[in-house]
């Protein structure tokens, strides 16, 4: 039995998620300067609680797939009596194995056809909770041609610093520049694979509620090849997987590859004999 969180609960959790990275890793206790202790107070002190670990902004090897529709929501009716919910699920399973071969861990919002509809808010809640490198929403249609890649139609935030809390309805606005880079990366890979590509800006639920870099990928027929064709799907999936690997390299290089910040010079210890005597520093003290 799947418990559906209410939209208010999801909004509250998103507010919390957004607030965590901005609040910083340091707690007041951890950021407080160390207090000087006298030698006589060198008795063992109770161990101070370790500062809480800060959650990363995203996991660089994690990809979220969202096969659209499911349950009573069949989506578009495709040729050969296929339904969009079935095509997106089979394509997600195909894509999952190819992405995993690139060293990614893949989380999917659904692995089967659920008995009940999966609300958009619940899909967004799952995606925002796991903090993936990219969220891929999968769709299929019988109109148009090639592959349609849609980014959110929201306006990017003007301010460079992310806000402490993100409104649920426009959460994607903060990640939109990265989402556009992801869309271009996937578009280029598909183009290199000689597949027709169309880049779009559309509000496709739940893309506006996601805090991860997100695109909706819609499979459309290509020159009499239906979207249900296994070879066609395999071709697209391989291009998407290579694009995700390239996106990871460009936008989230491995920690060893990033130049380590130069540490500040360590203060030199002052020997006790060289230290100024308290008597000379204290005016009025007896000589």
């Amino acid at each position, binding site marked *: 039995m799947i418990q559906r969180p209410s939209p208010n609960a999801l909004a509250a959790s998103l507010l919390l998620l957004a607030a965590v990275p901005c609040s910083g890793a340091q707690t007041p206790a951890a950021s407080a300067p160390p207090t000087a202790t006298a030698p006589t107070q060198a008795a063992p002190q109770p161990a101070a609680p370790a500062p809480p670990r800060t959650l990363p902004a995203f996991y660089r090897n994690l990809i979220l797939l969202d096969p659209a529709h499911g349950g009573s929501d069949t989506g578009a009716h495709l040729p050969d009596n296929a339904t969009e919910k079935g095509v997106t699920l089979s394509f997600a399973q195909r894509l999952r194995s190819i992405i995993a071969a690139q060293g990614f861990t893949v989380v999917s919002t659904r692995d089967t056809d659920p008995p009940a509809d999966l609300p958009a808010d619940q899909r967004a809640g799952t995606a925002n909770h796991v903090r993936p490198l990219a969220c891929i929403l999968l769709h299929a249609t*019988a109109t148009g041609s090639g592959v349609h890649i849609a980014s959110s139609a929201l306006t990017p935030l003007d301010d460079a610093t992310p806000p402490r809390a993100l409104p649920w309805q426009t959460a994607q606005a903060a990640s939109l520049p990265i989402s556009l880079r992801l869309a*271009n990366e996937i*578009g280029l890979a598909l183009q290199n694979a000689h597949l027709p590509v*169309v880049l779009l800006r*559309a509000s496709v639920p739940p893309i506006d509620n996601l805090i991860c870099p997100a695109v909706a990928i819609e499979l459309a027929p290509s020159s009499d090849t239906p979207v249900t064709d296994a070879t066609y799907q395999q071709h697209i999936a391989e291009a998407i997987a290579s694009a995700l690997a390239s*996106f990871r390299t*460009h936008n989230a290089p491995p920690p060893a590859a990033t130049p380590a910040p130069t540490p500040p010079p360590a203060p030199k210890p002052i020997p006790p004999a060289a230290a100024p005597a308290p008597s000379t520093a204290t005016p009025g003290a007896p000589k």
Partner: protein
Amino acid sequence: MIPRYQRILFWSLVSGILLMGAFLLRGCQQAHKRLIALNNATPIAAPTGAATEEVTLYLASDADASITATTAQVALPQDPGLRARALLEHLLAQYALPGSAHPIQSGPAVDDVFLLPNPADTGKGRIAVVNLRSSFVDNHPSGVEAELLTLNSIIGTLHAALPEVSEVRFLVDGQPHDTLAGHASLARSYPLTDTTARAVAPSEAATKP
């Protein structure tokens, strides 16, 4: 004593009658729904006698995901709300013509268009509320691109005809609706802008941080 074969025959005939009755009833209901969906009972203020005027229609094409502005001569009523409704009906009727680049099933599409003061805008600007018919939404092709093109076509056409309107929202049969046909959101409001668009190709430069 009734022979066994007669009893079997009797109940088989009864079952057949019931099945045929149910089939007939379902056929009647479906035909009734179809007729209701196609019946446009709401009259538009007839523009007969009004002179035609030049309007700009933003027409979509599925082949290249483009929106192109074209001009047409249309007779429109003077009332702004009725004018917007008649304009949208004329626009969406273009997509039902044979050989349309963005095919949509024919039939009435727009129930009403309301022009209201925008509560979020302190100065100028009004908000348009387009009330679509459920028959139009139910028969609209399902897909991200197809639905986006329809919305952008409506938005661009309203922007050209009603420059004083800054925002548009959509209802279906007077009620809020999540999506047009499963993909493009109708839960948000859209700014009225020039939606003329050509297909955008991905570029290498746009992939770099």
